[in-house]
């Protein structure tokens, strides 16, 4: 499969004001382009998924993972950043 730089960012936690804004600000500051956003509520928890393109990112993937994790702690939600391939592989033949 062709290698993509698409990244899936998921945010899970209790819904509060400004979650999307904080995450989007971080991504914009680091030149990460958001391609798609969707959200849902599962068992009372706020679930948001962003598909982002990290091609032009100013930071390494590893740094983004760590910094988004830290940002999540600040807001009180769980933020995960994963390369898209794991989902493509698992859910598409």
């Amino acid at each position: 499969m062709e290698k993509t730089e698409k990244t899936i960012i998921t945010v899970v936690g209790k819904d509060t004001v400004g979650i999307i804004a904080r995450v989007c600000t971080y991504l914009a500051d680091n030149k990460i382009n958001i391609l798609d956003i969707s959200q849902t509520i599962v068992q009372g928890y706020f679930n948001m998924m962003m598909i982002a393109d990290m091609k032009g990112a100013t930071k390494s993937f590893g740094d983004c993972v760590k910094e988004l994790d830290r940002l999540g702690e600040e807001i009180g939600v769980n933020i995960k950043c994963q390369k898209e391939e794991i989902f493509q592989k698992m859910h598409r033949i």
Partner: protein
Amino acid sequence: MINIGEVIETNEMVEQENLDVRTITLGISLLDCIDADLKKLNEKIYNKITTVAKDLAKTAEEIEQEFAIPIVNKRISLTPVALIGGAACKSPEDFATIAHTMDAAAKEVGVNLIGGYSALVSKGMTKADELLIRSIPMALCGTERVCSSVNLASTKTGINMDAVRLMGEILLKVAERSKDRDSVDCMKLVVFCNAPDDNPFMAGAFHGVTEADAVINVGVSGPGVVKRALEKVRGENFEVLCETIKKTAFKVTRVGQLVAQEASRMLNIPFGIIDLSLAPTPAVGDSVADILKEIGLEYAGAPGTTAALALLNDQVKKGGVMASSYVGGLSGAFIPVSEDQGMIDSVLAGAITLEKLEAMTCVCSVGLDMIAIPGDTKASTISGIIADEMALGMVNQKTTAARLIPVIGKGVGETVEFGGLFGYAPIMPVNRFSCDDFIRRKGRIPAPIHSFKN
């Protein structure tokens, strides 16, 4: 494009159902290290391992971070050392120096186990094979991370009963040497029939002589994921049950395939195989026995267990084969006693015996795995149990193995603690009737007939 439901499903598998990649095992050929000088041989082995595997642990960590999937173990398998050390080693002590070299190299590159302290003796033993086997007690008890395996039988050659007899004695010696630690060093030793050349799982991993210079093999896991999927189809018919297992196995295996390809690319080492085994851990919800219960048994070991396990094993393969370009290794459900809380519960409830476990090994991979037995079990009895397991593999053209732990100083009803992923095990009773005269016979059991199969 991927949707949010799919993302949530994948992440739940990891966070709540213990989905992980159980091991990335780097196979390294030592054939080019052979030297008649023992010191040079050890140097060459150390240098080769620490060169080829220097980035293994770091690469695995990077992959973990990229996909947020845990990679539990990083391991190394080597060409069977009996073949490599033959020219230089004139005594068991000489062989044991290679074990120390392996241990030091494993620590240097940060892998938790290193396999290949092995001999392949399914038909006969060379002098070197025998010296290596006799060195196993000192090799395992003097090192931390070295694993040993001996292939005693195969469908094409029959069973080497001289080696079976010897291994009964050797196992007791390993138990005796580590008796102050509940004989735990026995868990680093396994005997096989039809041992695969590309098995990534310890203690039985070695790098077969038919393999390339270095190769990446990956073992996936996911009993918890299968269990959770089956909870959703409770009471449904067998068709639905089988389809659910197959689909789940497909998803789990795809993760392994992705990780293997990434590791192969990053390390610039060819991808070998994915091992499609359901490998349990003592963690709650990560149990093969719990899947059997979910299929409809009160406990693993109840009547119907062998049929349920056969079904499970077959569906895992059917789903997994489609998900990976190359499948190999052991590929089947593991049924270790100590590493599986559901299996421990079965033993404690009196639902499962050694004989039922033996029957179960006819339809799934590995064999009698991580089973603690009383420390006063005779060597000939251990050899008898091993011979039975070898016969199952030989006749059924499959891999079988035995990893028994005779716990010196303990008896039935007591438990033994192995620690970490290895869990704990209640000591199981062994049939006390003698097979002395059978085991005392010299020579080998001939290969079985390959036709007239009924």
